[in-house]
């Protein structure tokens, strides 16, 4: 099983994400944003957290135009798996791979703390290690995590069971408490909370481990 983790100038969770993949059994290639292709045989692409391009213009906006994001879009169009965490989620919405947008937190403050995250569906390669309704402890660390989508998009996300996670207590003003969503084919996950920061006993919590283990289980060669 092979994962690629994209590195943008300003990414700062790229190594954490790589370690979480490795601990679940993946071999990991770090991929530079200027690369126009992903390595051959990649099973999943991770788009890490951080402040790509200094959050200039809008969070994720410049990263979304980088050469590697064209390759990422082609990978997801072919049905490839991808996960975007925090700034990675912002990049996935800016590329149009996932719907909606992430606005400035309603309280205007950068929030860095562990929150209760409710698993809304176990029907995905990312969430099948949890039960729907589970509340897990996962850190958030963002200034622009306020999920917005229009009424029609929200209805579609709910009808298709594509809301992966909601906040037990909404910290940032996200519509309908949304913390993470899935693509149409359920193979792309974007989420603001950081499961890779709750994937080792040294982190103070390991509730994120099940996400990476579940992925490893789905993507393991038969």
């Amino acid at each position: 099983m092979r994962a690629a983790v994209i590195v943008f100038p300003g990414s700062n969770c790229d190594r954490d994400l790589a370690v979480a993949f490795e601990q679940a059994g993946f071999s990991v290639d770090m991929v530079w944003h200027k690369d126009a292709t992903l390595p051959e045989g990649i099973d999943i692409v991770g788009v890490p957290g951080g402040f790509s391009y200094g959050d200039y213009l809008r969070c994720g906006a410049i990263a979304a135009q980088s050469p590697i994001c064209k390759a990422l879009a082609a990978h997801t169009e072919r049905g490839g798996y991808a996960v975007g965490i925090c700034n990675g989620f912002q990049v996935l919405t800016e590329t149009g791979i996932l719907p909606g947008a992430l606005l400035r937190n309603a309280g205007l403050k950068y929030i860095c703390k562990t929150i209760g995250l409710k698993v809304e569906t176990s029907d995905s390669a990312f969430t099948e290690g949890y039960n729907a309704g589970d509340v897990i402890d996962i850190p958030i660390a963002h200034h622009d995590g306020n999920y917005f989508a229009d009424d029609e998009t929200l209805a579609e996300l709910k009808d298709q069971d594509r809301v992966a996670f909601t906040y037990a207590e909404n910290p940032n003003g996200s519509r309908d408490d949304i913390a993470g969503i899935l693509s149409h084919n359920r193979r792309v996950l974007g989420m603001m909370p950081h499961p890779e920061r709750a994937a080792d006993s040294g982190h103070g919590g390991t509730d994120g481990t099940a996400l990476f283990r579940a992925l490893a289980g789905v993507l393991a060669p038969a």
Partner: protein
Amino acid sequence: MKARVHVMLKNGVLDPQGEAVRHALGAMGFDQVEGVRQGKVIDLELADGATEADVTKMCEKLLANTVIERFEIELL
């Protein structure tokens, strides 16, 4: 040729920064302020021959996120 692009959050999208500015103005005694929306102004210096249609494409592809923002183009 120059173009000035105004990017504003769409109506109905919460603007917490604008709200904070409104609160601050109210606290300073400017009771006449009933609402504030904050946006961006982007000035482009363009080569001869560039058209408003080109700038529209730039706005749609990068300068604005049309999920949450609307834009207006002013040719200067």
